[in-house]
């Protein structure tokens, strides 16, 4: 028996034959950037995950963690994948007491399922990452993706208060806990959140919830870029407590233009101010925002507002497999300058998350990859000049092979490598998709 065959046999014994897939046809459904895993394991518990990781680590078999696969476009093309470790079966609700405003669930729980559970108690997990609600909590934490409510509620980094993590040495550890305030020991939650499955496998998460806002709506206005920038400045420094502030260029808006009660010219931005709150405060927020944005501003509610929110949320989600999406992170006041740089190009869409300093952008048609590559380099330079950086979040495999998706000069790589060696000494976790092969 070959070493691989013997490793596979050991792994299969951990989860059972029915939860261990090796048939070519089946595992093909799990390929990423053209790489097909040798096997797919579907563990049922954190202990099984830990045993899988230990065996894989001992046998030098590379492991790629998978929730529902919605965000696997993130990351460099993987090195050969030994095993995909799927959390499809680990979707149980562990503990939810509404009065605690926290919830604990297994990593394979989908965002949609969680929102449904907490929604019945008038609560939400204030996260709306791009893509469908089939995204899993483990995946959302590993990628630290946030959405339209970022400026008010933060990212998974802010909302995760406890984790159960399976490590490559076969142990399962708890980080953090169940209380919102907890300074006992080091904040290892922060280490695993946003580490793209390269340090350990998040098996369960405890997260902060918040009360559902009583009411929400969107005020939008079509504005020339300088006016939009001015309005952003005003809204950010106001005390109106805006929940969402996004600015889309005309190429981005073409996708939803028909559904909106404003007309969009080629040299105009569409600004969305999302308001959330109680019925007492919303009318005043609305009238002040309308006043600030001028006579062209309009409010949308109900289904129209929902579809606008969905558009904003999904702007950063690749429209089709292989679509190019770049993310620029810049200091808050520079977001629209970044948008201007992109909007000067024909056929490039841009949506600025102006309350958090992010800009998502990409070509409407990414046919000419050499050109796209050049422009991405230009965008990265622009971001750096504005005091930030750029990441290629999604793109065709060819482009991801060429373009340094996470950036080139990563600070403190030595410390990150030491952390990686500490938790994954044989380097089997993540298949080299994170920056500089971490």
């Amino acid at each position, binding site marked *: 028996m070959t070493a691989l065959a013997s490793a596979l046999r050991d792994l299969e014994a951990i989860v059972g034959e029915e939860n261990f897939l090796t048939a070519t046809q089946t595992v093909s459904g799990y390929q990423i950037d053209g790489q097909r895993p040798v096997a797919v394991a579907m563990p049922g518990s954190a202990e099984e995950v830990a045993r899988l990781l230990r065996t894989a680590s001992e046998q030098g078999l590379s492991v790629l963690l998978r929730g529902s696969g919605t965000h696997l476009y993130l990351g460099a093309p993987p090195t050969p994948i030994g095993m995909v470790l799927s959390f499809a079966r680990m979707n149980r609700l562990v503990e939810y*007491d509404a009065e605690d405003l926290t919830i604990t669930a297994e990593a394979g729980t989908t965002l949609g399922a969680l929102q449904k559970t907490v929604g019945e108690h008038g609560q939400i997990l204030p996260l709306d990452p791009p893509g469908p609600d089939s995204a899993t909590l483990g995946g959302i934490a590993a990628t630290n993706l946030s959405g339209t409510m970022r400026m008010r509620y933060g990212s998974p980094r802010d909302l995760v208060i406890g984790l159960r993590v399976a490590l490559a040495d076969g142990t399962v550890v708890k980080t953090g806990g169940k209380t919102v305030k907890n300074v006992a*020991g080091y904040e290892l939650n922060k280490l695993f959140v946003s580490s793209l499955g390269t340090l350990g496998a998040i098996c369960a998460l405890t997260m902060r919830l918040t009360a559902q806002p009583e009411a929400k709506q969107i005020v939008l206005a079509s504005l020339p870029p300088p006016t939009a920038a001015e309005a952003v400045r005003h809204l950010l420094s106001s005390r109106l407590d805006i929940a969402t502030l996004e600015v889309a260029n005309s190429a981005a808006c073409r996708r939803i233009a028909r559904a909106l009660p404003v007309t969009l010219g080629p040299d105009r931005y569409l600004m969305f101010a999302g308001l959330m709150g109680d019925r007492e405060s919303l009318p*005043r927020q609305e009238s002040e925002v309308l006043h600030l944005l001028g006579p062209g501003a309009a409010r949308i509610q109900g289904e129209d507002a929902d579809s606008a929110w969905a558009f904003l949320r999904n702007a950063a989600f690749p429209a089709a497999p292989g679509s190019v999406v770049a993310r620029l992170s810049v200091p*808050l006041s520079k977001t629209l300058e970044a948008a201007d740089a992109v909007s000067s190009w024909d056929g490039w869409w841009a949506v600025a998350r102006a309350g958090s300093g992010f800009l998502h952008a990409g070509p409407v048609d990414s046919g000419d990859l050499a050109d796209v590559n050049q422009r991405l380099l230009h965008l990265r330079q622009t971001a750096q000049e504005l005091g930030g950086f750029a990441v290629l979040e999604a793109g065709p495999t060819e482009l991801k092979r060429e373009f340094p998706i996470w950036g080139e000069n990563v600070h403190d790589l030595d410390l990150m490598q030491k952390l990686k060696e500490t938790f994954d000494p044989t380097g089997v976790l993540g298949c080299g998709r994170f920056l500089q092969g971490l």
Partner: protein
Amino acid sequence: MDKRALRGLRRAVGRHNALTEPADLLLYSYDSSTARGMPGAVVLPASTEEVAAVVKVCAQHGIPFVARGAGTNLSGGSAPIRGGVVIALSRMNRVLDLDLPNQRAVVEAGVVNLDLQNILAPHGLQFCPDPASQKASTIGGNVAENAGGPHCLKYGVTVNHVLGLTVVLPSGDIRRFGSKAEDAPGYDLVGLFVGSEGTFGVTTEMVLRLRPLPESTQIVVAFFDTLEAAGGAVSRIIAAGMVPAALEIMDKATIEAVEASFPSGLPTDVEAVLLIEVEGLEGALDGQAERCASICRELEARSAEIGRTPEERERLWSARRSAFGATARLSPAMLVTDATVPRTRLPEVLRQIQQIERKHGLRIAKIFHAGDGNLHSNILFDRDDPDGLRRAEAAATEIFHVAAGVEGTITGEHGVGAEKPRFMSLIYSREDIEAQRKVQRVFDPAGIANPGKVLPEPEAAAEGTA
């Protein structure tokens, strides 16, 4: 202290900023906890580079070092229990960059929290973390402890508001983690460093997120005949879908202490006072405040009033902020704990703490950030009573067990420091603690950064287990 090391320290910060007189050393031998240790030298660097030079000397000679802000630490985090060098950051108190358009401030570690708030307020901005010690405590200390404060309920803790750090690693290397822009690719070294209690190195500068001040705030004050009823009101308010900015409870012992030292007009014949702060837009708060007040009345509050004026609000908050100092005046000595529990477990935990009080014949003054289950049990004892400290410590130990028993934590905001490493095993397994130790060793393989804090000694890991 080794003569060559001392020469090195003097060279690093200048002769006048390296203290070795016993009287000076004594001043830096303790913080606001019961931990003590005599340092070999105290240095007062003026820049990150000077801190790095000091740490290099320490690294070269294998001398432990402890960074110190204002010394308000309540867990012994800034006490030099293993001797060595105290790096006092009080001279590093400049706001380096007040970046209003980007809503960021870059400050040195020794900037006092309240001083920063006072600089920000005229611009309509705030730095959200507001520990009760904010008049004295420094941002560097807030970051090292991942400090909380009453307003965490709405805004989260310190780490949620820190985007970048300049640190001196225990090797003497200067590093800059994070920036004004968010979500840099790579591991979250900023998040990891915040709350590491000075054991990963010395944080010298920080990039902070600022937020607009709320336009308006209102405070509801309710008095209850039982602590449980006050706790019940907190649960109901949360369940009703409101997220006040703060929900604070003080018990009878604390109210009496406050009234004795800083009279604020609180009645001393009630068992609990609940302070609820709601904030938001002017004119939009009456409904929320009224709903909170009526929930209190439904739970048989003796009274529930809405304080609408800024003066009223300030009077009540200063009563709350002075509670710690006032309680300390009640008794010659006080052991401070801040166990934190899931908020729904508060009523049963309170009952158990009252039993502990009776069992040990001690008075425990209770102040809590009830909205997030953070329970400050201040155990009063008489240091001259030979058995006093022992009984107080026994009571504290039992409180930690109670918190651990309901899936709470041994510290919500004060830190583990020197006082609680032996209780870590109440809430973490050996493997959990080993994972933390591995991270600590990545940053400080030689173990010279604030040794003896946070993690139990490897061989002592089993102590304290129930």
